[in-house]
């Protein structure tokens, strides 16, 4: 492939989108209103005269007398029930610390991991065997169970969740992910995608039904077959589509990814990283 070097003067024109009518976009330090009687919500502050200013860059939201600013880009905060993808950073006594791209690492307690077999109390043997479950740098998919006093997230690993292997990890801003019924999807019938609410995404090749059965039977002893070239191309294509959507600040959702995927089919996966092609495949 040729080396492509751009002069910023020669980059393709990016198509812009208009904000919805009536929305007020503010920058940090900008005055929202000088009228009295409004309550300040998140993302705002008042000066001595009681005028309301924004302290983040975002969109103003008004609910009756409560004025808040929803920031464009913020660290993932989380809600109970969110499905997230994270990376194990540390093992501590009967718990793991997981990096979920939030303000703090999340905590996954040993007791919150759904082990195969009937539910039972965790014993000392289980504590010593933690490494057989998850080790540092492993990527896992989990659910937000609750919050601790300090605001950090407590995770739980249910059925169909756990360690993720044989795939790639992609990170996008969490503000581009909207809550939906399920976060486990398949794009173009070939690429499995897990879209974590925290902006962390896992892509892997879909397994055929027979392969899924083999995996279920073998359990821990299952060794995945190496991923063939055609599947890798599809994964690369989806990965580049997700990166293109993130680059243009568009919502990351199976529908938008599929649309982008279809538009990308006339290009080689490796050409989807060039600015001109990103522009074409992300056009509404």
């Amino acid at each position, binding site marked *: *492939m040729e*080396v492509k070097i751009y002069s910023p003067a020669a*980059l393709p024109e990016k198509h812009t989108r208009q904000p919805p009518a009536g929305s007020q976009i503010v920058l940090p330090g900008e005055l929202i209103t000088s009228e009295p009687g409004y309550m300040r919500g998140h993302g705002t502050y008042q000066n001595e005269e009681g005028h309301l200013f924004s302290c983040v860059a975002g969109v103003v939201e008004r609910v009756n007398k409560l004025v808040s600013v929803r920031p464009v880009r913020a660290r993932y905060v989380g809600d109970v029930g969110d499905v997230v993808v994270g990376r194990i950073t540390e093992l501590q006594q009967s718990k793991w610390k997981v990096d979920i791209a939030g303000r703090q690492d999340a905590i996954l307690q040993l007791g919150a991991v759904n082990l195969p077999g009937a539910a039972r109390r965790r014993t000392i043997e289980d504590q010593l065997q933690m490494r057989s479950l998850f080790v540092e740098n492993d990527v896992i998919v989990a659910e937000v169970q609750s919050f601790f006093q300090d605001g950090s997230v407590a995770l739980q690993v249910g059925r169909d969740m756990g360690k993720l*292997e044989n795939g790639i990890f992609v990170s996008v801003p969490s503000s581009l992910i909207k809550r939906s019924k399920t976060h486990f999807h398949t794009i173009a019938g070939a690429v499995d995608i897990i879209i974590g609410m925290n902006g962390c995404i896992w892509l892997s090749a879909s397994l055929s039904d027979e392969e899924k059965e083999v995996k279920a039977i073998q359990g821990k002893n299952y060794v995945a077959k190496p991923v063939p070239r055609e599947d890798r191309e599809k994964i690369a294509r989806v990965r*580049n589509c997700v990166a293109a959507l993130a680059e243009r600040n568009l919502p990351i959702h199976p529908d938008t990814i599929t649309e982008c995927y279809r538009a990308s089919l006339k290009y080689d996966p490796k050409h989807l990283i060039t600015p001109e092609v990103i522009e074409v495949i992300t056009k509404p």
Partner: protein
Amino acid sequence: KKMLKSLSPSEIKFVEEGVAQNIRVDGRGRLDYRPFSLETGIVTQANGSCRLVLEDTDILVGIKAELGEPDAAAPDCGTVFVSVECCPSASPEFEGRGAEDLNVELAKFTERLLRASGSLDLKSLCLIPGRQCWALYVDVMVLDSAGNLFDTISIAVRAALATTSIPKVNVIEKPGNQYELELSDDPEDSLKVDAVGVPVAVTFSKIGAFDVIDATLEEELCLSCRTTFAVSQNGSFSSTQKGYGSTDVKSLKDQVKIARRVALQIIERMDAALHTEESSNRPKIG
């Protein structure tokens, strides 16, 4: 977005298998380069500057020319000094003193690149042999990193030097072996630094049994050896650097051929991009 200190064994295996099949995570082949942009003349306080943006890698180079004394070993040449700073915000491993070793390695390598014979025309920077010369201070800031720092820094530095202008100096001889230097006030009355011979670096990251160029951050976490070659526009090699790991002679021979091909293409495209920029007359900011 910066969560990477290491990958899980499964992810490393996935990357290695992909590289072996010549299809990397983003669909590129082993010898494909990511697209990037070059913008020069953006720091108007500096004599020359360049900003290179390649995916998330963001490099800013500023070049200042000051009057100084030549090195005793090379009295008829100017001097050049390089400093590199990887911003702590660019990557978790740069926090605190983490980037110190990397800063030194990158700076020393880039300095060697520029001081090698045939690279920068240092003789043209001499004013009074043995007494006064121009000293070029090249400051590189790595604002954000998506891998491949050696190559991108060498490209950005070459672009900055190619667009660096130094005021013309009139040397007036005075009695008693004294000299007076008259610097021209007119900003248009300046000399362009001759950076045609400055080489460009091509780094090979060995992943499994194969080499890739322009590695991403994730790929750099999977490498077993890193070798860098600096090639200039006439195809000659000025320096090499081996980082982490060990390699074999056959790999080196293959790498040398590829490095020349890639570097020459980069130099050709980069000169074309700089030429487009010069003729576009975009207003400068800052």
